[in-house]
């Protein structure tokens, strides 16, 4: 999932300081799972903002709605009926959702309530970790299911480097050395010899370095 975290309340409040009525839009996708922008967080943020503004003597009116997903245009349709008289839209989705709303409503001021962090998963309730670097060319079959692109601080493909100490990365004691994890796992699987193969420099053009990306599946495109 895309993991995001809410911006400080103070910052969100500042973004809509000059608004009298705002629409807060949650997203029932990834940000619900990472407890940052689901229905519950949307209602809580709306309530907190209303209280703050009332205490400041500048009451704020809020409308809330949680889309099934903000990254699919059809799920934004219900907003058409809610957006009319609001001064701004506060999106509690990842950066994708914020942009989808901004694109659909070109004349509305749209602000993000979250900071989009990474593609990852949960380690335990309330803790999330990065797992995918979105490089566009998966090599997990070569590295025992552990991604060196994102879990190695240097993204090196033929590790470990000299900074690997006691299974930890030199950047911090609580960061595992991805190449230690890869080595241990390949050893346990009896596939250590596969690591002897030197990986050539990776083609990063499929990653962000190639500019904004697009994925197309021709067979499901509906012709006009």
């Amino acid at each position, binding site marked *: 999932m895309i993991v995001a975290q809410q911006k*400080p*309340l*103070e910052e969100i409040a500042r973004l809509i300081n000059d608004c009298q009525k705002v629409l807060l839009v949650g997203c029932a996708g990834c940000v619900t799972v990472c407890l940052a922008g689901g229905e*519950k967080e949307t*209602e*809580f943020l709306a*309530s*907190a*903002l*209303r*209280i*703050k503004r*009332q*205490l*400041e003597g500048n009451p704020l009116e809020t409308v809330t709605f949680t889309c099934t997903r903000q990254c699919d245009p059809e799920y934004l349709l219900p907003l058409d009926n809610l957006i009319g008289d609001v001064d701004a839209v506060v999106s509690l989705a990842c950066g994708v959702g914020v942009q989808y709303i901004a694109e659909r409503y070109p004349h509305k001021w749209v602000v993000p309530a979250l900071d989009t962090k990474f593609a990852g998963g949960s380690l335990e309730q309330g803790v999330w970790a990065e797992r995918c670097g979105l490089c566009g060319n998966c090599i997990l079959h070569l590295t025992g299911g552990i991604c060196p692109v994102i879990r190695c601080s240097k993204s090196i493909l033929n590790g470990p480097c000299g900074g690997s100490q006691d299974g930890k990365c030199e950047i911090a004691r609580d960061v595992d050395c991805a190449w230690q994890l890869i080595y241990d796992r390949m050893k346990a699987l009896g596939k250590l010899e596969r690591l002897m193969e030197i990986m050539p420099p990776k083609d990063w053009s499929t990653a962000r370095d190639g500019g904004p990306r697009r994925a197309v599946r021709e067979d499901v495109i509906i012709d006009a």
Partner: protein
Amino acid sequence: MEEFEPKIVAFCCHYCAYSAADLAGSMRLQYPPNIRIVEMPCSGTIDHRVILDAFEKGADGVYVAGCMEGDCHFLKGNYRAKKRVNYVKKVLAEIGLESERLEFFNLSAAMGPRFAEIANEMTERIKKLGPSPLRRKGEEK
């Protein structure tokens, strides 16, 4: 001037604080009538939103009362409730409402006198703080 009588919402766990309130009644203990009790199946069912909602709807104070630590009927509900209450206290401070208006208490079903004591303690505390700044002027007390 008429003395300020706060409205205090007490979210009480069925297995401890709610029963303690019952016991306080049976023991004919006096406690302020400012407390509005909401029975919960477990303090762990308390939600961040509900606490803010109580303040928005005019509560001057809110407290959540759960079982003694280690004694939760559902094992960990009271710890979770306490963490949530502490989180909301932080949010209250951020948005400019005194965090002292919100509190979490641990007690058992056998603590009728303690229930009355907590009710007194919170009522005194909120009286000192005065009416919630969210309550509009002229609104019923």
